[in-house]
């Protein structure tokens, strides 16, 4: 009986507007007579920053070791071992976060949002592999990147991808880079992290759709070497350009190329280029005219791309949650849809006026108009640049690893008879002969 009386009493209390001494609380905290002590709300601290510095140190050490193994030691087995270590450490142990690919967005956000404090590790992870590539080529891709490692490890039966298809598909990586920068700068979204296909495997949990994309990429990766690296990786785009300029790089032969053609089919990523002669007599003139045409086409393509990007501004802007909320609230206010969503409820709970929201959304859309134009122009430039590059003939006197495309995995070394000679000689030295 007393219990029901108490319930009724509480029900009454619920109905009375709170007039307690504190003013804000409906039920003032009780004055306990039994000597009860208020427990403390616990607040477990975040991981100390030292872990991030350890990550940065491991990255530096791994890059140095990778460079030594790839350029000096020239041992595929040792490179593979380092690659597995990187997969275990940066992938499974550190859960694949932070990685240089994602760090692109942190650096972008730092440039565009002055209130954002970039973690020091993100900066180091972005800069270090690029600096190394500028000196020694893509040793990061070959032995340190966990995303590259997981794909490299599953490659069992490489299939040749035609050169034209490879170049065409690579456009996806440029688009991905452009979009990632655009959305990190003004879209309030980190696309690269959202659609990182392998981080779910590293954590053994994650969004199902992305896990399915990752599994498909790994399945494709059984036959087509490193599909993410070649056709999607936005950081790879930056590394390609840096690698073109590198001071030192992977050479298939340790000393001289005897043009034996044994290495021709060695690269599963299609990065080995055969020696070329001069232009065939008749073709030179046609090629010259083609080059002139493509050079003239360059500004046209850039302008067309820019215009295309501009027309996409409204769709691009919809990625931003503010814009989506504004559109929803507008539809609700004008009575075109029934009911509310969580986002529109949350907006109304803030007590701000709809005009403010609309203005904010318009400002974001304007920014996307500029950003979309730049993105489209960039893609136009990439396509035009590729066309120009295709019509220029490079002279090569020996078999070479393509500067931009070579992942520095070290597979081709053992195909070179000169390399075998060197190994034998080295073994002799070690054995003390």
């Amino acid at each position, binding site marked *: 009986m007393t219990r029901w009386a108490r319930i009724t009493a509480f029900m009454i209390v619920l109905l009375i507007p709170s007039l307690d001494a504190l003013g804000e609380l*409906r039920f003032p905290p009780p004055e306990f007579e039994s000597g009860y002590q208020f427990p403390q709300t616990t*607040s477990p601290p975040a991981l100390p920053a030292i872990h991030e510095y350890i990550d940065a140190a491991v990255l530096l050490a791994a890059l140095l070791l990778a460079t030594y193994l790839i350029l000096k030691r020239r041992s595929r087995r040792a490179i593979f071992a380092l690659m597995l270590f990187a997969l275990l450490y940066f992938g499974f142990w550190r859960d694949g976060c*932070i990685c240089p690919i994602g760090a692109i967005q942190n650096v972008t956000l730092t440039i565009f949002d002055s209130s954002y404090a970039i973690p*020091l590790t993100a900066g180091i992870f972005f800069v270090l592999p690029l600096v190394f590539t500028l000196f020694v080529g893509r040793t990061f891709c070959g032995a340190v990147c966990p995303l590259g490692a997981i794909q490299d490890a599953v490659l069992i039966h490489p299939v040749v991808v035609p050169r034209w298809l490879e170049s065409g598909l690579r456009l996806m990586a440029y688009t991905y880079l452009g979009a990632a920068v655009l959305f990190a700068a003004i879209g309030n979204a980190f696309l690269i992290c959202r659609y990182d296909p392998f981080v779910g495997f590293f954590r053994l949990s994650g969004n199902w759709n992305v896990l399915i994309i990752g599994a498909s990429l790994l399945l494709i990766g059984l036959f087509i070497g490193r599909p993410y690296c070649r056709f999607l990786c936005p950081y790879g785009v930056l590394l390609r350009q840096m690698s073109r300029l590198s001071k030192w790089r992977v050479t298939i032969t340790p000393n001289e190329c005897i043009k034996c053609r044994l290495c021709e089919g060695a690269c599963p990523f299609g990065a080995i280029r055969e020696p070329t002669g001069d232009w065939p007599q008749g073709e030179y003139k046609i090629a010259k005219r083609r080059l002139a045409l493509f050079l003239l086409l360059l500004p046209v393509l850039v302008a067309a791309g820019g215009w295309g990007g501009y027309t996409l501004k409204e769709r691009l802007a919809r990625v931003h949650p503010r814009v989506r909320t504004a559109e929803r609230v507008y539809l609700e206010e004008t009575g075109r849809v029934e009911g509310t969503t969580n986002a529109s409820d949350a907006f109304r709970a803030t007590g701000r006026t709809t005009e403010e929201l609309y203005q904010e959304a318009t400002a974001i859309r304007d920014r996307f108009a500029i950003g979309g134009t730049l993105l489209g122009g960039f893609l136009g430039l990439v396509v035009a640049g590729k066309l120009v590059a295709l019509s220029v003939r490079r002279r090569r006197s020996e078999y070479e690893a393509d500067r931009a495309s070579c992942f520095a995995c070290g597979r081709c070394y053992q195909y070179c008879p000169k390399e075998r000679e060197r190994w034998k000689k080295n073994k002799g030295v070690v054995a003390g002969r």
Partner: protein
Amino acid sequence: MADNSNSLNRRKFLREGLWGACLGGLGTAAGLTAARNNRDNTVWQIDPNICIQCGNCATYCVLELSAVKCVQAYALCGYCDLCTGYLVPEPTALDTSAENALCPTGAIQRTFVEDPYYEYTIDEALCNGCGKCVKGCLAFGNGSLFLQVRHDRCKNCNECAIAAACPSGAFKRVPADQPYLLKGVERKQ
């Protein structure tokens, strides 16, 4: 022949120039990072005053069991017998029976303190961060229950998957040395 070596030099000059420009660009990026990093690193946290308890925290976290947990600000709690954060609306009895419990995982523990007061504690190993109790507490109680990212569990992803799905914009990056936005702390001080 002289012309040929000249063009080679030009190409070399261009290459060297580009190389230097790239290195300079990377140096700028490194400098920018160092300059901006005089503040502390950041972690993700929920602003309890903006949160609308939509339930996304329970489902969008990359972890199997969300790193977002309900937190009790004891100093704000009314220690009610009829706790609207603990009991379903119109309970059949004010007790710990499962049929009356609002929490879907049974993560709230109700302990008798003294008549008529009960203490409510969250068992974080069971809590999935759905925020049902928070909604109940805010609706009729003091609002002493609220959601927080627990940093002993949070992976601190570069982009928090819940933040990307948060309809109210309650997720924000906060300094790592003050990683919580607790209710009722300012009241006690």
